[in-house]
């Protein structure tokens, strides 16, 4: 019985992780654009700006 609950919990966890992984993602090349922070940072924010 406990085993079954555990299994259900694991499935729910797995599905939620998969749902996040399936976010729509756009591949934006960085090139030699101005940047700050480590190149191997886990999060990259690419910002398109207009100064005016």
């Amino acid at each position, binding site marked *: 019985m406990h085993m079954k609950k555990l299994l259900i919990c694991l499935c729910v966890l797995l599905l939620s992780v998969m749902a996040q992984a399936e976010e729509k*993602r*756009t591949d934006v090349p960085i090139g030699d654009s101005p940047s*700050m922070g480590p190149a191997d940072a886990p999060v990259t924010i690419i910002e398109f700006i207009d100064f*005016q």
Partner: protein
Amino acid sequence: MAAGPTVKQLLQTYPGKIRLVVKNYPYKYRDFARIAAEASLAAQAQGRYWEMHDLMFTRSPKLDRASLIAYAGELGLDVPKFIKAIDGGDHAAEIDRDLQLAQSIDLYNTPTFYINGRQVVGERPFDFFKKIIDEELQLAGR
């Protein structure tokens, strides 16, 4: 507009975890958008991109040629070199490349962000970004 304070706050909240990259999308009907982008890249060529970025963000919309030159002086840049770069459109190809990239990914608004490729359009509150970044850090196991 650039995002400024919110992005700064994110960088401070997650030290070492975020790489920030800036691309130019100067809106063509704003008089000084393009020359401001040129000025930022002219400053980058002198190794002073972020100082110029922050100063222009603070002083926007005062971004006419004379003001930009004054800012370059204020930051201690090589001013004649800076003027030559902005007047000569030295970085036009880089700006055009960013514009083409924007067009290819259906981007027509600033600021627009890609957080590990996840698109966020327009100014959003800190917590909106924080939620996405926390999710991404969780995915990355960091």
